[in-house]
């Protein structure tokens, strides 16, 4: 019996030792999990590719320069699959910190997973750049090591109202329809508040299930409320379906602005249904942020350079998840360079003070009650337009970044 026990214990220890456990002393280890499987697979992959591009560029110059040490540190990644599920996030982040000796962390994709990872980062006092996580709620929970790259959910759709009041002050009826998911719901709840504050009439405020495939009757319901604008959405699949069916049902509204879906390049597979749909995006290749219009100090490549480099590396034009991934690396790099140190506290201070503009937009963090929340960056609005018989994304908002004028109203396309 004792033998059996010792064998079992031995097996257990052996099993725990499996997996590489080295970490270079002369390298900067950046740890994160990504969703190689499960429902976040595609967004997470984009984000990862952006991050990888950044690392490649940094390492081609020999790494990040750390002033106090006086030399460059190349960047290495340690990452695991979190399966888009919360189960292992904490285990893997703990492993990244304690076993893989990660110096800095990047968040997983999605707010839910980030929230679980944040506890670990906070507990071990590791700086974590949160990208792909737009929720506001993580940032009033007392964390002091988590820094958000995305514009938070509360400001995602508010600009749609600003656009509307600018182009058509008479349009006052708004239908807000959204996917019943964490992200969409928090975005739309804030949008509703903002709309009401601005004097709009919210004629419909209703959620649909994430699994919804058929919107026909829902669209009939929307039609009956005669809105001027429809805003909302959720993720890609539902947004795409919804758009397709709006077109099929020939719904006559003036503005359609949806989360996520319009920003994804595959949206163009919808053909004419995609035309004139607008949507907020964290970043677009055509966004004309430049050194000239920047409200703060510029850092890193231009939009064009980033887009081209990405296209060269992966064969297609990047979306905002990729840009978010790249930006997370870039901001971290800037913070280390500013701090001149890789000590957490120094980097943290640099991040607190940071106010820069990059190809991705302005970056500045809240240091008050919502510590770490992104306050500098704002959404750009894109619209699908026709150019030479082809569907193209144009940036129409904010005006300083626009690549084309908004085509209004939406029903012009019928």
């Amino acid at each position, binding site marked *: 019996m004792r033998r059996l026990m010792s064998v079992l214990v031995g097996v257990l220890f052996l099993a725990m030792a499996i997996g590489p456990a080295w970490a270079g002393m002369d390298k900067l280890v950046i740890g994160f999990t990504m969703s190689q499987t499960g429902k976040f*697979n*595609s967004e997470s992959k984009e984000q990862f590719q952006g991050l990888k591009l950044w690392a490649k560029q940094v390492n081609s110059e020999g790494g990040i320069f750390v002033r106090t040490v006086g030399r460059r540190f190349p960047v290495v990644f340690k990452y695991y699959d979190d399966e888009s599920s919360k189960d292992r996030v904490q285990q893997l982040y703990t492993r990244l910190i304690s076993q893989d000796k990660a110096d800095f962390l990047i968040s997983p994709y999605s707010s839910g997973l980030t929230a679980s990872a944040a506890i670990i980062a906070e507990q071990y006092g590791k700086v974590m750049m949160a990208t792909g996580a737009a929720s506001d709620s993580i940032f009033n929970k007392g964390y002091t090591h988590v820094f958000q790259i995305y514009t938070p959910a509360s400001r995602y759709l508010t600009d749609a109202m600003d656009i509307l009041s600018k182009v058509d002050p008479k349009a006052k009826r708004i239908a807000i329809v959204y996917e019943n998911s964490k992200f969409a719901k928090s975005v739309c709840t804030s949008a509703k508040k903002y709309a009401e504050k601005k004097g709009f009439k919210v004629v419909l405020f209703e959620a649909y299930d994430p699994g919804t*495939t*058929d919107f026909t009757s829902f669209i*009939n319901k929307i*039609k009956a409320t005669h809105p001027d604008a429809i805003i909302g959405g959720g993720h890609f*699949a539902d947004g795409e379906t919804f758009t*397709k069916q709006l077109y099929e049902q020939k719904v006559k509204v003036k503005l359609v602005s949806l989360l996520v879906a319009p920003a994804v390049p595959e949206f163009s597979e919808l053909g004419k249904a995609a035309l004139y749909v607008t949507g907020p995006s964290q970043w677009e290749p055509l966004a004309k942020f430049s050194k000239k219009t920047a409200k703060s100090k510029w850092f890193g490549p231009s939009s064009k350079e980033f887009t081209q480099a990405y296209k060269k590396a992966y064969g297609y034009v990047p979306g905002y998840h990729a840009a978010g991934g790249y930006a997370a690396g870039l901001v971290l790099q800037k913070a280390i360079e500013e701090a001149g140190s890789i000590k957490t506290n120094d980097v943290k201070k640099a991040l607190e003070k940071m106010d820069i503009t990059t190809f991705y937009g302005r970056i500045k963090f809240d240091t008050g009650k919502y510590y770490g929340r992104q306050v500098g960056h704002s959404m750009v609005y894109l619209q699908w337009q026709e150019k030479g018989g082809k569907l193209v994304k144009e940036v129409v908002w904010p005006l300083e970044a626009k690549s084309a004028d908004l085509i209004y109203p939406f029903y012009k396309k019928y």
Partner: protein
Amino acid sequence: MLSAWLGAVLSGILLGLLYGLAAIGLNLIWGVMNVINLSHGAFIALGMFSSYFMAKYLHLSPFIGVFLVLAMGVILGMVTYFVSLHKIISAPELSTLLATYSVSLVIIGLGTFIFTTNPRAIDIALGSVSVGGTVLPTTRILTGIFSVIFTLWLYYFLYKTWSGKAIRAVSMNRDAAELMGVNTTMALALAFGIGVALAMTAGALAATIFPFTILSGGGYELKSFVICVLGGLGSPLGALLGGLILGLIENLVTLKIATSYVPFLEFAILVFILIVKPTGLLARR
């Protein structure tokens, strides 16, 4: 308001027919071999991708490609049967549940690796028809028609061909069928093959209407459970009727209550019917 109701009914019927087709394969397999095929959803997703790639690379209209998908499905299903089910076909339910689930893991695992979970859509615009203020896209009407055609085909197959009759005989009494000279192993494999083929067919048709990922089959699988329980086990027509009921529920209920409650309603119906009349609402027995 009247037009809203009419629209809901019409699109409910069209969607319901598709749901029905999606459930028929599950129901056939359940009825014939008493196996709940937990890889049903994975095969639906495979059907979606088959249709997508045929449209994209062979420039084949999904409404023609669907016949190819059907043929492929039969072969794939039969292979799956021999690999994963044949050995345990008489074992307790748990074994067959887990075996089919493992098939699903393999398909979805490989699918995620190869296709990623990037959403895809087949861009096929065939115009639309307007009925009393409701616009019905042609693709939807076509999927409805095709669903009916495949159901009728299955009926013809099961009731008019020797192979079909053999499958029915096997479902009623395996030993007796064997004594009549039916190769029951092949009959079971064929039944599984057809069940899988119909799942893939439904996927191929759904892909013309809705965007999808490798994970999209899961939703149809869960709906298929509801449909099978509504329509009664083993009956293809029951599945079509169950699908119609579900399609109408989804469309009509939405007019009155918040859309986000629909899935709750569906699963509550599933559990309720199972408790009250486990053989299915429309079943004779």
